[in-house]
């Protein structure tokens, strides 16, 4: 049986887990090809115009898969952490896809909801597993191997590798020799899909910089910095961004911060504001907020990145 995984949204965080799990269950895993203009075009055709870019692109990936696989995997990710959510749009994702795309193969749509209990995760695992086998031991074993694979991945991230490097299999940790360090903040699907961000990481690293992202920070960093919040924030991805920004007060090695947000992103319309105000008040690190949507032409964004990087280069030289 062929199972399709759309290369979009939280695929970039969970690839090592999902792929391994399905492979261990004996399925043939088909991941949609990298995002192209056509993926986006297909996605735009079927979605309402005010939904954010990453969700449109996700639609494009589902469309490219649907005729080549027996089932598609579209998880309903409600919450991956106690008392936190990801985004309302991901909570309704399978339903939105069903309403927008015709002639879909069956959808494997486990609900992952850890809002009240970590058991939610195991429930989801068995829900998915039992679709393909009725042997609980097989599911458990597959899950064990998948988590192990995933653990290796997160460990590599904490050591400084970036998801894009690991997923591409070209980790160059040696770039510690980099002239300066840029902290690139954003949601994984925006940071690690070079189509969405117009290959931004590459562009920045061409300046001889090392790009670090929220995925490089450990759970402890998040915990210490988020405890300062007046009121705990209920978005997991937002928390990562906030904590990554808050730790700048103690870190002297970051030369610039770029925050990348999707046009119309609900959570980031508030988080972006909080981060910007905080960085300006508490540090003197240069900061820029870049908004991307399907119209963000190469030219406009490129000029802004170049201007920002030139400025940092000059600053460093003095």
């Amino acid at each position, binding site marked *: 049986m062929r199972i399709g995984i759309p290369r979009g949204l939280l695929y970039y965080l969970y690839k090592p887990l999902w792929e391994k799990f399905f492979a261990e269950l004996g399925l043939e895993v088909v991941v949609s090809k990298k995002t192209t203009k056509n993926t986006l075009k297909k996605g735009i055709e079927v979605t309402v115009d005010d939904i954010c870019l990453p969700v449109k692109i996700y639609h494009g990936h589902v469309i490219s898969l649907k005729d080549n696989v027996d089932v598609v995997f579209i998880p309903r990710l*409600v919450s991956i952490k106690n008392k936190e959510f*990801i985004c309302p749009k991901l*909570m309704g994702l399978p339903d939105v896809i069903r309403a927008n795309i015709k002639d879909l193969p069956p959808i494997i749509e486990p609900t992952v909801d850890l809002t009240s209990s970590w058991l939610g995760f195991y429930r989801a695992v068995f829900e998915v597993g039992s679709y393909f086998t009725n042997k609980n031991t097989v599911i458990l074993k597959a899950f064990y191997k998948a988590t192990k694979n995933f653990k290796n991945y997160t460990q590599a991230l904490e050591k400084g590798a970036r998801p894009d490097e690991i997923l591409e299999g070209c980790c160059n940790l040696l770039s510690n020799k980099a002239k300066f360090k840029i902290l690139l903040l954003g949601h994984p699907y925006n940071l690690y899909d070079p189509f969405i961000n117009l290959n931004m990481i590459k562009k920045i690293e061409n300046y001889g910089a090392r790009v670090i992202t929220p995925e490089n920070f450990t759970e402890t960093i998040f915990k210490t910095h988020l405890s300062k919040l007046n009121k705990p924030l209920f978005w997991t991805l937002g928390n990562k961004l906030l904590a990554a920004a808050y730790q700048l007060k103690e870190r002297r090695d970051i030369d610039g911060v770029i925050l990348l947000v999707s046009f119309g992103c609900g959570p980031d319309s*508030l988080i972006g504001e909080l981060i910007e105000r905080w960085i300006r008040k508490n540090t003197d690190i240069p900061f820029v907020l870049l908004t991307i949507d399907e119209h963000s032409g190469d030219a406009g964004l490129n000029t802004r990145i170049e201007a920002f990087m030139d400025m940092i280069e000059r600053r460093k030289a003095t």
Partner: protein
Amino acid sequence: MRLSFPHMGNLYIPIKTFFESLGIEVVVPPLSNKETLELGVKHSPEFACLPLKVNIGNMIQALEKGANTIVMAGGGGPCRFGYYSEVQREILSDLGYDFEMIVLDPPKGNLLKLVKNIKRLIGDNSFKKIWFSARLAWKKAVLLEELDYADGMARVSKKLNKKKANNLFNYFEKEIDLTVSFDKLQCIENQMKECYHDLTPSFEPIKIGLVGEIYTVLDNFVNMDIKKKLEDWGVYVDKSISLTEWANTNLLLRLLNIHGEKNTEIAARPYLNHFVGGHGLQSVGNTVLYANKKFDGVLHVLPFTCMPEIIAKSILPAVSKKYNIPVLSLVMDEHAADIGLNTRLEAFVDLLCKRKEGMKDEILFRS
């Protein structure tokens, strides 16, 4: 303490009543107007949703009027509203205002904080007094809803012309606002019954169900008085959300933990199988219910970029097709203009009239 709070429809009347009868000085911000919106837009994050911007405008105007404490509702997500207070506090203190913000968060395992915050507000008033104030405020909220309904029927049935209806509505709204005793409220209710009698229209009006994000549904400044507009055209409008009902299910039932599955959720299930924050699920479910109740159409209102309602907006076309009921999604933002809105509403009502007369029109969904 000079207490204030942002507006949502005429909710200020019961809230003001509650705090004033506890002996707290209340500063009601000017009713939301163009200037409120301008202030809000100027000082809020560009891509924040409209309610946050109008709130900021209200708060600035309240602080300018001398308020020094702001009560704000909180929330546990996933909708943005739950984190408004934090962003608003930052914005206002960066603007140099000296004030305190008291956030009332639903008790998600942290009942103590809520109790503490409520305690700060009500001081050492006796329980009897608090109970009295709450009941008075509640009674007002109920009366205001009755007034809204009666006023609507008066317009739809054409028993009162627009000007008379406006006058009568304003008169009763003011009376309810100013009254401080139960007896007097009872008198007003009786008066209302006398004034708004015999409201059944002599014709079968077009019936529209109004669904969407709560603030947009309930605040007439933000929805550009859409309900009255339609009613003046003789269209019956049913609001799917009412404040008292919302308070009942969200505050009381949540506290008692008997929040069961509701009809709307069951109705929505084939199309949207999970809560998505705010009223997204209700928008889908209520559309199904309106179709079952043989309404002629459904109007879906949402602020620009509202996440739960964008989900609903994505799904409603499928519901519309399945149940053969026209749905119009209207996105509200600071640029929405009266003229554009009127044309779109007219076209929609036109479509509904034609369908009612038995003419076939294939276009079901518009946005």
